[in-house]
């Protein structure tokens, strides 16, 4: 028996508080915080309930038929649970961080309202049961993140937000066209394990190829595939919690998640392989990985370096999807979670440096490890994970991707992984070296003292520590039940069948 309310409730648990927050007067600080935290924790509880249910084989399905063939579906399969859980956990953490970060800045009601809508949209994307629903939430996500990127109101923020909007909305329109075209050919596009297209008549195959490119272009914009990545470094003007959310959970990840859905649940990985589409995807992914890493090398701005790192890292997910075989699939999917945990840690840390010491550039980071040891420790965990040093979670990803590539005979991918890891090391290790081993300067650019014994505001300190511990844990206990890896194995097993 299907439970028709739980998926909807999960989406609404952040959307409704978000809508309420807009109406709050600016000085209702406590009420706003309470609403935020209530929404986040309530959502976490609901998601916990859903994990338990999905594990025990319950079916969750909210649906609303608008017109014949036009149906909104929210449902929970193993893949959506993975993404929902990631978003929900990281949202809670980021909310705490954002409350600390934006303590004294103006327009908080507006900020938190859109923040909540943004997460609702992400969760909606995760739970979408068909492409129509996916697009609905995908566009809402764009709409909700635009004000967050533009939040600071400076000319740069305005510019960054416009570029962001131009890219993502064009992508959205292309995606819409592709989706409608595909639906015209084969009817409603419900996400189905193993794909929908393999039974379609042969004569449609050329059209399928074109449609794949349209859909990939639409999704690739958000996933920042080269050459559609141009918005991402520009969007760095957003406040740190927004960047964290954008890179780890919401926008970029939504694009990557969409590619995963496209390959596995619409086309079907084997069908896509048969049409030669996986090679194209792989080529784009490979180009993106290398390009992102190379660009990251030359960035002095810490956030920009992290941004290009995101460009590169998110394409591991696409890379995993582009290699046929369950092991590579596991590598790609598990990176959805791992990259999120590690990257959000890094962005929290970057935010702490900026907020506590006024540090924005890598070159200013000499000796910050002594002033902010805990933050820097979290940064170290995240960076090492990105490079792929065991036992942090990133290692698990690279290990499975490499194994998968070897299994499928895609040796170029192994070379790519090695090259990419070296590049990762080349742009992360200098940061760590500076932070720990260089002497601190006599004074920091803009130091801000918080009334606490800790190194910085507790709301800023705890979130990176928590996510760093989670990244470690995901690597250390990868074999434990309910770990991301185990869950992804379940998904891969279902996709490829017994």
């Amino acid at each position, binding site marked *: 028996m299907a439970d028709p309310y739980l998926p909807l409730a999960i989406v609404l648990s952040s959307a409704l508080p978000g809508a309420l927050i*807009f*109406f*709050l*007067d*600016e*000085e209702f600080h406590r009420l706003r915080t309470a609403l935020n935290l209530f929404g986040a924790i309530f959502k976490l509880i609901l998601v916990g309930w859903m994990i338990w249910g999905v594990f025990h084989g319950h079916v969750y399905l909210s649906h*609303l*038929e*608008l*017109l*014949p*063939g*036009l149906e*909104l579906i929210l449902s929970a399969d193993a893949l959506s649970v993975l993404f929902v859980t990631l978003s929900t956990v990281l949202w809670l953490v980021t909310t705490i961080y954002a409350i600390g970060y934006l303590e004294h800045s*103006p*327009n908080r*009601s*507006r900020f938190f309202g859109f923040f909540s809508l943004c997460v609702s949209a992400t969760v909606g994307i995760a739970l979408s049961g068909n492409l*129509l629903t996916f*697009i*609905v*939430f995908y*566009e*809402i996500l764009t*709409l909700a993140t*635009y*004000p967050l990127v*533009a*939040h*600071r*109101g*400076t000319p740069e*923020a*305005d510019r960054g*937000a*416009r570029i962001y*909007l131009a890219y993502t*909305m*064009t992508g959205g*329109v*292309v995606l*819409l*066209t592709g989706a*409608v*075209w595909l*639906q*015209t050919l084969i009817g409603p596009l419900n996400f189905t394990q193993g794909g929908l297209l393999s039974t379609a008549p042969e004569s449609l195959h050329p059209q399928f190829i074109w449609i794949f490119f349209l859909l990939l272009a639409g999704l690739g914009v958000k996933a920042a595939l080269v050459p559609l990545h141009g918005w991402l470094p520009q969007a760095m003007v957003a406040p740190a919690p927004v960047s964290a959310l954008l890179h780890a959970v919401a926008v970029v990840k939504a694009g990557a998640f969409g590619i995963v859905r496209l390959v596995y649940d619409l086309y079907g990985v084997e069908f896509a392989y048969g049409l030669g589409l996986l090679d194209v995807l792989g080529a784009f992914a490979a180009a993106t990985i290398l390009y992102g890493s190379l660009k990251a090398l030359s960035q002095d701005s810490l956030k920009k370096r992290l941004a290009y790192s995101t460009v590169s890292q998110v394409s591991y997910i696409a890379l995993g999807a582009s290699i046929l075989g369950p092991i590579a699939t596991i590598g790609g999917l598990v990176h959805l979670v791992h990259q999120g945990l590690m990257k959000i840690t890094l962005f929290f840390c970057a935010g702490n440096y900026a907020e506590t010491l006024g540090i924005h550039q890598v070159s200013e980071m000499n000796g910050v490890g002594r002033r902010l040891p805990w933050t820097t420790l979290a940064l170290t965990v995240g960076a090492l994970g990105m490079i792929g040093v065991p036992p942090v979670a990133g290692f698990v990803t690279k290990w499975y991707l490499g194994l998968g590539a070897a299994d499928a005979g895609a040796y170029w991918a192994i070379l790519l992984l090695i090259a990419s890891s070296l590049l990762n090391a080349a742009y992360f290790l200098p940061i760590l070296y500076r932070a720990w081993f260089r002497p601190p300067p006599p004074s920091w650019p803009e130091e801000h003292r918080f009334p606490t014994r800790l190194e910085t505001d507790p709301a800023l300190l705890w979130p990176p520590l928590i996510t760093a511990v989670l990244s470690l844990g995901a690597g250390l206990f990868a074999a434990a039940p309910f770990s991301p890896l185990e869950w992804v194995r379940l998904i891969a097993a279902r996709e490829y069948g017994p």
Partner: protein
Amino acid sequence: MLDPLALAVAWPLLGALSITLLPRWAAHLGILAAVGATLSALGVAFAVMDSGSLTSELGGWKIPLGIGLRADGLAAAFLAMVNLVALGVSIHASVYFADSKARHHFWPLWFLLWTALNALWLARDLFNLYVTLELMGLSAAALGALSGTRESISANLRYLLLGLAGSMTYLLGVALLYVAYGSLDLVQVARSLAPGPSSAAACALMIGGLSLKAALFPLHFWLPPAHASAPAPVSAALSALVVKAAIYLVLRLWLDLFAGIANASAAMLLGLLGGSAVLWGSWQALRAERLKLLAAYSTVAQIGYLAMFLPLIAAAADERGRASLLVAWVLLALTHGLAKASFFLATGLVQKTTGHDRIAELGGAAQSLPAATFALGLAGAALIGLPPSGTFFAKWILIQAAIASGQWWWVPVIMLGTLLALGYVFRLLARAFTREPTPPHFVTSARAELSALLLAVLAMLGVGLAARPIANLLGV
């Protein structure tokens, strides 16, 4: 025997008359009449949803002799939307005109317009339609000139004259139909309509006259100045409702009256005009320097989408495809009605606060009116066609029909139109995010701001997600 259809027309007319007699109590009587009219219209809509279409023969004479009123699903859907919008506009206007000299004149004219609108959706008599069109045209022009500026008077004078020319053309078509078929009842004439020179000429005259009133490209030139210069609540009604009425009649005549003779090439012509309107209107909106002009050009574009449906409806493979296109048409029109009304109301608030509506100088002003800006944003999103607005689903169906029927060239038009719309809406919204702090309260004038905001929320969340009940109402 209580006649809900006659009541829906009588309420606003009674409101207009009582305000004419007692101008001192205009605002109170106005709200009373607005609520009454809205309730009666919603009553009609619910009755239609319950029991299918309603017909009444006024004066108790059988239909070819007496005048018939008819509420089918299409009419009921529009009736409900229009009355909700009109209620919102009334509530807004009660604040907007509160201390203006125009208030004595606004209310009675506004209810006369409302009467015309309700009468128009319900009419099934071709000559009665002419009378409602004239009532609508005269009251709309008079309302549009209420701002009293030179531009508004000359723009609305032009609108009045062109509207007259349009309705006279329509009337000649009616005369030809009466000559050939000896009846004025839409349904009866449709039943006996046969292809031939007189029906073709009547079709061309009636559709042509209405296209002028509907501002279909290239007959749109009167619209932007007229709508941009009227007082904001009036602009809202003009752009959201009055133009909609004319394009609704185009569709109504096309599908109900001229179904027998409306051929694919004529439909294609209208579609091409629609496509040009989409591109031209959106482009002009993108270049507009004033907020209200932007909104007015956006209306030109939206009317274009509505005309674009005609060739696709003509080419629909089966009844199901036709029905879903019809639903999409209604979704688009209803969403645009709500969104455009909200957009104009919010624009009026901005204009009142800043004293102007030049887009380039808006910065900060938008910031100081969070609720109005929010309404602008939501309404703008609905105009672009972002989900889950009705426009989004309508475009989905439109693209699907274009691909399915092989008329793929509409797809780039729709894509481009959407992107241009995105451009003009966000050109505006980008100015809302300045560094100035927001005022401490989200809402400053509840009646004025919430009416705009609620309409925008309805446009964004109401129409699209209610596609199922709307489809049921349309009986498909």
